[in-house]
Each structure stands twice: as C-alpha cells, then as structure tokens.
C-alpha cells in the first residue's frame, strides 16, 4: 500500500490497536457535529448504527481476528443510494420521510465488510445539477472556501470527504456528478465503466447513464473501494462486474503509455485551469508517457445528446412519485388527479421540473424523431468516435471541468450556461466509459483544479494505475489538505 492511502492508514491504526474503531467513529461523528454546520455536507447522520458497527469491529479486533481493509472505516453514501431503515430522500421534498425496506447492492457489499456508515450526504435534487444547490436541504459548501459550491451532484460526498468528515464515500455520476465535485473539492472521484458497479438500489435519474463510484482522498483508496463494490449483480441485468482487480495493478511503470490530448476538450477552458493541466502533462512526460494530439469533433454534440436522452429517461423514472405509496403527499386536494398534480408541483424543485418537462417533450409523439431518435443515433456515433480514438492512445487526458468551483448561486442565474460546465464530463457517460478526476494543482483563485483521465470500457486497472503514478509524482504540489474534520 502506498503512503497516501487514507484507508490503509486508518486500517493499520486499528489493526495495530493504536485506536479503536469506536474511538475513530466518535472522532468522525464529533467532527461532523462541529463542521457540518458550515459545510452542509451531511443531510442525515446515523450515529447509533455507526457505533453499533464500530463495536462489532472492536469485538473482532479484541478477539484477535484479522479485519478486512474496509472494515471499520468511517464512510458516507450519497442520499440517492438506498439504505434499509435509513431515510433516503434524493434531497427532494417529494421523498422526505421515505425509508427504504431494502439495501442497494453497493451498500450491502460494504455493510457485509463492516464499513461504518456515518450518514447520508447532500446532493442536487435527484442528482440533477452541477453545483449541489438544488437540494431541498440547501447546498453543500466547498471545504476549500465555504462561499463556493462543493459541485454537483454528489457535492455532499465530495465536501464530506474533502473536509475529512468521512474517509471515503460513494456518489453517483450521470453526467459528471462524481468527477466534477471531486475536482472542485480537490480530491479523487472515479466514474467506473457503465455496468461495472450494480445500480440496484440507486434511485434512478437517467438509467443508461447513471453509475455509482467512489469519492476518495487518494487514487489508491478509489481502487480499493472500486474493487469492493464492482461485482456482477443478479439484481441488475445491465451489470457485468469488473474485468480485473485494480489494486494489484497499481505501481506499474507507465513508460511508453500513450496519452491522448483531444483538442475539443480544451475549447473554452479557463487559462489558469489549462496551465495546471499543462503542468500535469510535464509530470507525465517525466514519467516516460508519450502524448498524441487528437481530434473528436463529435464532442460538440455531447451536451445536447446528454440533455435530451438523460431528461427523457428522467421524465419516465420520476413518474412514480405520485404521493400514493410513499414520500410526500399534498394536504389539500379534490380528487386523485388533483392530488397527484399538487403533490408533484409541491414536491419537486425547479430544476427537476425543468428536466421532466424537457424529457416529456422530447419523447412526445410529434417530437420523438426530431430529438430522442436523433440523439440516440448521435450517441452511437460518439461511441464509435471513442473506439477510434482509443486505437490511437491508451488514455485521454482532459480537464474535468473547464473552471474551478463557482461561487454560490452562480448556477441559478443561467441554467443553460451551467449545463455547459458539464462539457468535459458528459462524453464518458454517453459512451459508458470509465473516467477519473485527480487533483492537478490550483487555479488563480486558489481553488483546486481537476484533471480527468478517460479510458476504454473496463480499463479501470490501467486508468487507476496511470492516475496513481501521476499522484505519487505530483501529490505534494497538487494536493492541499483543509483545516477541518478528523486529522490522524
């Protein structure tokens, strides 16, 4: 294990009995109590369940049993991952009070390993947003500057992990929702290949794009968590599991690896962000990687394709929130239609309504061919373009976001302009490719900049190793811890 892995560090502290799991868990819970007020990262804290798990782990250690790497590690889940007996709301008023009767597959995998769940973290409502400000609980703040956003939609996880209020967390990435907030908060976010991690229990935004992945303090931790959650799941027929374990591939030389620079990814990137990325390129060169300049004109179609298809699926996925069976129901109504109408009008926020309407429109009989079908065809073309590109390189290096974390309320002013900030993350979701965001320095505003590495489907082992090699070489200059949370 490398020296930067937070999980490995906590694991040895516990295994060597330098700290008990209960003490460790308490430290995190105390830190959450202290710092969450300024970050709003957590929307639900679960101290009792956390301490119960911790006690179980301590009993094991006391009995002289060996513990697994993720055993006893305090962590968090985005609030769209179903947790049995723990309220799960997608940070939407319409799901307030909803307590799932089953566990998401990713959570049951971690639960079995005695990972300690500290609570559920903030997110854009139903994972729709790029700033984590559409949450019905209010926005999550950036631990590097609390006047800025944590990023969306898994902003709560990124804020919690970035502020040391959890050792790691699971987010979901539909158009960049893991990578973008990881980039804004100066930490690591991995969006796995579509299908590598089961979606069972992930409350859907756009089914053919959604993917669960780890948000961590290091690449090594991302690999560890990814290995733990990527298994073929009989409950999800689109899941295939991973191809090979990634942790064991870390540490390989990347001399001779071909890294592609696709020029379209760099259009409209803020100069200071581009400069940070240039520095990263130099680091890679010093490690012996080779660079190839490439072009993918179809990148230009990615945003419209994404917003058409994702909204279409969202309009269908969100149809079930009618107030009849669970969640919020309006108080005053005249008949069934009125009840459903008012429940949805009152329960959903503005951004969610905007996307439901957009999705309903593009699927409607008269517009299907002009929008949905055309977007589907383009999706096919984008997949092909990536296939061709990966014949010429092993990984693609790109910005994660063309800028750094926005100040608060920036997103609300112009939704379409905010959609533009997803330009670099969305293509991976369209093609189902794995992507990772790794810190690569700071902008002129002192905020973290993220570098994105993309690979072909199921290339996580390569991708994580390339990222890990960079991290080892550049960590001291690109990573800045914050004065918050638990410090061990």
């Amino acid at each position, binding site marked *: 294990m490398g020296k930067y892995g937070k999980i490995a560090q906590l694991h040895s502290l516990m295994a060597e009995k330098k700290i008990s799991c209960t003490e460790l868990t308490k430290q995190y819970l105390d830190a959450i109590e202290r710092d969450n007020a300024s970050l709003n990262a957590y929307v639900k804290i679960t101290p009792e369940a956390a301490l119960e798990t911790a006690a179980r782990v301590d009993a094991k250690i006391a009995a002289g049993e060996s513990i697994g790497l993720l055993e006893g590690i305090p962590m968090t889940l985005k609030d769209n991952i179903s947790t049995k007996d723990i309220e799960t709301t997608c940070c939407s008023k319409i799901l307030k009070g909803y307590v799932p*009767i089953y566990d998401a597959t990713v959570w049951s995998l971690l639960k079995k390993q005695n990972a300690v769940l500290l609570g559920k973290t903030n997110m854009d409502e139903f994972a729709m947003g790029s700033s984590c400000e559409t949450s019905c609980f209010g926005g999550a703040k950036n631990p590097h500057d609390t006047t800025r956003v944590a990023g969306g939609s898994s902003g709560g996880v990124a804020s919690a992990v970035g502020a040391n209020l959890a050792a790691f967390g699971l987010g979901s990435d539909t158009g960049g929702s893991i990578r973008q907030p990881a980039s804004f908060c100066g930490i690591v976010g991995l969006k796995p290949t579509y299908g590598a991690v089961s979606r069972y229990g992930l409350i859907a935004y756009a089914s053919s794009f959604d993917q669960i992945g780890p948000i961590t303090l290091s690449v090594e931790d991302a690999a560890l968590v990814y290995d733990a959650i990527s298994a073929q799941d009989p409950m*999800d027929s689109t899941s295939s599991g991973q191809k090979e374990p990634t942790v064991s591939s870390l540490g390989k030389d990347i001399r001779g690896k071909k890294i592609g620079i696709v020029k379209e990814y760099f259009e409209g990137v803020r100069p200071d962000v581009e400069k940070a990325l240039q520095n990263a390129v130099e680091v890679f060169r010093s490690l012996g990687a080779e660079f190839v300049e490439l072009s993918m004109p179809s990148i230009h179609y990615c945003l419209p394709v994404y917003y058409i298809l994702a909204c*279409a699926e969202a309009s269908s996925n969100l149809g079930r929130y*009618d107030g009849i069976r669970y969640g919020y129901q309006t108080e005053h109504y005249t008949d*069934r239609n009125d009840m459903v109408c008012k429940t949805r009008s009152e329960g959903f926020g503005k951004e969610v309504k905007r996307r439901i309407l957009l999705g309903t429109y593009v699927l*409607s009989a008269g517009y299907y061919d002009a929008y949905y079908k055309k977007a589907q065809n383009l999706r096919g073309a984008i997949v092909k373009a990536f296939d061709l590109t990966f014949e010429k390189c092993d990984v693609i290096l790109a910005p994660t976001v063309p800028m750094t974390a926005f100040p608060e309320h920036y997103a609300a002013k112009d939704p379409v302009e905010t959609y533009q900030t997803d330009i670099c993350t969305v293509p991976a979701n369209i093609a189902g490719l794995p992507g990772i965001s790794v810190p690569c320095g700071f902008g002129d505003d002192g905020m973290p900049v993220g570098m994105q590495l993309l690979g072909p489907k199921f290339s996580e082992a390569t991708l994580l190793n390339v990222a890990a090699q960079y991290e080892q070489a550049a960590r001291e200059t690109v990573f800045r811890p914050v004065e918050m949370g638990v410090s061990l």
Partner: protein
Amino acid sequence: MKNWELVCGLETHVELATKTKIFCSCTTEFGGEPNTHCCPICIGLPGTLPKLNKAVVEYAVMAGLATHCEINPDAKMDRKNYVYPDLPKAYQISEYDQPLCRNGYVELSNGRKIRLARIHIEEDAGKLVHERGNTLVDYNRGGVPLIEIVSEPDIRSIDEAVEYLEKLQTIMRYIGVSDCKMQEGSLRCDVNISVRPAGSDKFGTRTEIKNMNSFSHMIKAMEYEMERQIDLLESGEEVVQETRRYDESTGCTEEMRGKEDANDYRYFREPDLVAIRVTPEMLEEIKARMPEDLQVRYNRFVKDYGLPEADAKLILEHRRIADYFEKAAAGIKNPRTVANCITGPIFARLATEAEKADFNVPVSAENLNALVKLLDEGKIRMNLLKSTLEKMLDTGKPASEFLSEKDLAGISPDELRKICEQAAADNPNAVKDYRAGKEKALKAVLGAVMKATRGRANPQEAEKILAEIMSN
C-alpha cells in the same frame, strides 16, 4: 338498405402460467390477501430494477410457434409511460417496435386464416378495489407476465370472433403457456370493430371496446356496437374513432375516451434491461419441447383414429386429455371406444373446466388400454366394459380386480347352445308366439340368455341359435 359487413380485429391478453412474475421472483398465484404477493421490485420502489424471467420469453416463443409466427431473434423491451394508480412505476414495461413474434395466423374451421400482426410480452398492472367510497390498490397482479396477441382486422363475423378466441384459448392451454381462465382475467381482449358496405374493400372508422372478459359479454358488446355503427351510418352520421366500455348492466357500449385525448405513451427503449436474444440453439430447444401442432393432431385424430370431429375437438381441448387418449388407444382396433370412455364415464366425473384441465383420473391410460383390449379380443362385451370402467373409476384399481376368470373365459358355442336351449325351455309362451309369427318374442328370450351369461354372450350369435331352436 345496404348489407353491412363486420371488420374486426382482436387484441388478446393472455396471462402466462409461469411460477414467478416477469421481473422478480414473487409468485404469480391468483388471489391471496391484497399486496402479499409483492416485493420492492414489482411495486416499483425507488432504485429497484427489473430482471427478465427467462421462462416468460420461452413461453412467448412457444405461443408464437404454435400460431405460425416468425420469432424475432433480437427483441428488446420498451417503456410505455402513463400514470395510473395501479401502475406503480408510472410506466409499463412492454415491447413496442421489435416484438418477439410476428406474422402468424390462426386458422378457422371455415378455412379462413386470421392473421396475427404480433405477439409481445409485457407486465400486468395491479388492480383498484373500490370500497366504501375509498379506492384501494392491490398490486398482487402487478408484474404477472402477459402476452398480447394482436390480430389483423381479418374477422368478418361475430361467430368468427368467437371461434378465433376459442381457438386461441385452446392453443394456449394446449401448449401449456396459460390456463386462459376468463373469469380470473387470465384471458381478456379488446375488440376493434368497424362496419362497411358488404363487398367494399375500404375500412370504416373503428372503435375499440376495452377489456372483454367473457364470451357472452363479447358477443353482446359486438352486436350492440355493430348495430350502433350501422344506425349511425344509415342515418348519414359518422362513426367517431374512440375507446368504448361495455356496460354489463345495460348491454350497451359507452364512450371511455375520444381520439383527442388519446394517450401519448412516449415509448422508448427500457434502459434497465438488456436486449432479448433468442439464439438458434434456444429456438431449437423450445421447438423440441413443443407438443405436436394442434391442427395436425386434430386431423390425425379424425383420420387415423376415425374419431368424429366433435369427439376429436373435445379430447383436444386439453393436452393432458389428448396425451391420455393416445396412450389408452395404442394398439386398439376401434379407438372410438376409447374416446367414448373418455367423453362419457370419465368426463362425467370431472365437474369443472379446471378439473378437466388437470385431468386427474384414477384410471391410468395403461389400465384403460388393457380394459378396451379385452373388448377387442372378444373376452368381454360393451356393457361389461362400461360397468367395469365405473368400478375402476371408483377405486383406481385395474380391470383384473373386477373380472373373474369366468368373465374372461368367453363362452364356447356348445355352452351357448345349451344356455339358449334352457332359455327357450324356460319361456314356452315366447316360443309359441314366435312360431305364430311374432318375431319380437325372440328378443325376450335373448334377454334371458344375456342375463344368464352376465352379458358375455355375443348377442348376434345367440340370436342366430335362438332363431334356430325356436323355429323348430
């Protein structure tokens, strides 16, 4: 006054007899306390995903093969979006533009083929229960697998519609994919109906009558709707394209929704499921499992076994009965006797359609075969066969338990002559009458012979001998 012709097509929903639901492992059993046959998946809780039951695909392919359809090797499932409380996901998972089966037909007794446009699989919805002013939802039926069989508008009379539906019912039961119980909703259909001047080849404007769940309602609804449309057209008005509902209490159809507010289902590919692939191997495997084609078997029953058409139809109503018949009729000289045993004494003991379908008969096909063979060999007569069969049905024991050696020994010509002579001697008046020309008198003596032999005597032979004795 013009002559009007019916143009009709049926969309038939058949609930498949799989043990578990289409997307989860809940039971498909009918009934049960409300909302007890449910899980997070079939009630569409947030985050749940469907997983397709392989048996559903196999059953649908069987239905397609039995109705001469082409099987689509690359089918997929789509979402049909609409909001209704009995549909917990707010969409139904169905197949839209790439159905599993296409271009089949069902042949009617008049030789006309009713073409099938498609057969596709989909999930059933739950049901609403209206109680004391409240509406409650029961999701037990939600997620039960269905196939929808869509016919072309080839049906030209109500009789044809009935025969078509009966035929579908028989085929689906016969291949074992559904019990097709209309009273339990496992067979139901929507009727698309229009009329046109006889001889015209143009279609009139059609209406759709939803959810017919009994043959008698379907007939009444079609009669009413035909007349309504003819009345409209004859008085110079137009038929409006709309969806109608049949009201059992009034016997009328009434408007449910017009074309203007027709649903836009916003179909699109179901992203939570992978494509359905019917490989050539899988297809071969299913074909090998299929029973003989119903029509082919029917023809064989009529031609090879010499069964009357009505009997063949009765026996082929359920596959178990047909299989039983063939086993029992193996090597029998006159298979009609076996058929009569089934449609007579055996059917008399099966009160309901369900009992017939199960065909749990205490007499095994082998035992029936052995019994009828005795008749073939001349060891017993028909009336003894019948009474023995009744005893076998009462006890489940083989014929040998009820037939003594004496019963089976047969009667030698000498013995028969002796019995006849005795009978004639016992009935002097009858002999006198016979000699006086009353031929009927012989029958009374013959009766005595049959009684004395407990039915074992061959009546024709006995009659011959008696005539000889009584004439002298």
